[in-house]
């Protein structure tokens, strides 16, 4: 099993979810994060003070899939999340050694 950690633009979440559903991946865990990278932020000005807001809102998805599904999932996410503009985000694949479904105590591939 692998965990795919995907950092994407917030408004692409629905598209990515649909794309994953399309290849049979229905489970995932989502969090709001802030990204630093090449994409430039904006400036906020409050009376005398200027602040360079260099963090940008991003969505992080964690999706655990069986090894065989990894490549399909990467393709699906990348295709759905791409706008072609800087800041589209990254996909990282991490190894997962075990998985447990809490409700049933099923393990590993059965668990996700």
């Amino acid at each position, binding site marked *: 099993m692998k965990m795919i950690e995907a950092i994407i633009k917030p408004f692409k979440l629905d598209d990515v979810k649909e794309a994953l559903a399309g290849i049979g991946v229905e489970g995932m865990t989502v969090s709001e994060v802030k990204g630093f990278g090449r994409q430039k932020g904006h400036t906020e*000005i*409050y*009376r*005398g*003070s200027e*602040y360079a807001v260099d963090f940008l809102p991003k969505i992080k998805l964690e999706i655990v899939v069986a090894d065989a599904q990894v490549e399909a999932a990467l393709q699906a996410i990348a295709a759905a999340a791409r706008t072609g503009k800087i800041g589209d985000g990254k996909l990282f694949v991490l190894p997962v050694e075990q998985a447990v479904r809490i409700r049933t105590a099923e393990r590993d591939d059965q668990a996700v």
Partner: protein
Amino acid sequence: MLKLCPWILLAAGLCLVTVGFGLMATARADTLPDPTLEQRLADLEAYVNNGPRTAEVAGRIAGAGPGHNAWMMTAAALVLFMTLPGLALFYGGLVRRKNVLSVLAQCLGIAGLVTILWWAVGYSLVFAPGRSLLGGLKFAFLNGVGSAPNPDYAGWVSQNVFAMFQLMFAVITPALIVGAIAERMKYSAVLLFVALWMLVIYFPLAHMVWGVDGLMNGAWNAAARIKAIDFAGGTVVHMSSGWSALLLCWILGKRHGFGRVIMAPHSMVLCMIGTGMLWVGWYGFNAGSALAADGIAANAFMTTTLAAAVASVAWAGAEWLLRGKPSVLGFCSGVVAGLVVVTPACGFITANGAILIGVLAGVIPFFACWKLKTWLGYDDALDTFGIHGVGGTLGALLTGFLATPEANANLATHLEGIVGHTLWLHQLAAMGITLALALPGTLVIACLVKFTLGLRPSAEEELQGLDVVDHGEAGYLLD
């Protein structure tokens, strides 16, 4: 624990004192002759016109007049609304999330503390007859302050309502200072500073400007040495708090990380809610300062509206021109600046005067906040000086030029020959006295607090945020 002694003791002490205090029965000599029909009519007309009662007869109207009392109760409630929750939100939205409650606690604590001071001695020191620099103790513990009007100030308004209306001014004035020292002053130090500041600066100053025998009460005290005018508190409220705030924030030093860390408002939404409340409440402040629901109040209502609106457009417009975007904070700052600048003038000027004030109020404080602060490098966290100090000063001066008997016939009573001519010199003198009292006073008080309680929390505490450190609470719990 020890640190809150000053405050607790003060409150407790006052409470004890009052126990031994006899309640004065308001003696009333009812031996005046009965009024004629004509005199009774004249009294009723005086009520409608907010004129003086027919003296020397046993008038049939016992107390205040309902229209004026109704307006003044409304106005007093509106001025309280300016502080709680108005100003608390305006300031609370502008600090970082970890300090929002500390701002609210400062506003609440000041409201409570100042009310107690006002009841004990404040009202009396300001409004009881005394000398030109300070009032007497006749009204200490609000003794003798009943529902009958005090004709020295408002012939048709209950004196207790008048006292509460003026209390609300006494509450908001030191609360304005909170903006300058936000995020970095110990709670106990804030309260002690404010208590001393009221006694040493506000009460004398308010007496000089508004007291019946006050030194610079040009409009009402024929004997005033300085014939200045201040309708609703340009010197007393805004200059005094604004300049004291500047000095205090300079003594206090900058917030940790100032200029390096993002210190953006944690909620512009709160700030804007507060602004709306300030604007609405300011009608009580300005039109209420007529102390009647008369034509002068009506005029003040109009000039206040025009100045606030025009200044908001001017400030945001200046941002748009010079920085490319008009901001909500710009509009809000403009509204408040407009209201500040028009405060001393509102009952004395015409609509066109108010428009001019609006334009200047939008532009000059904008530059103070934008450039002056950067040049001089002080950390006036929420721009109390930039808006109230600069705005109050501007307003006091402009009042000298724009006041006209056309807008307020009372200007023709004691001030004929001055209004439209040398009034601005008297205004300058009043402004000088305000500074001469506020700046050294603040310096002494701040040092006193610094070397007793200490002014600032530790760096670690400041980083953690004052909400948890000083109040053991969090502003929001989002999960």
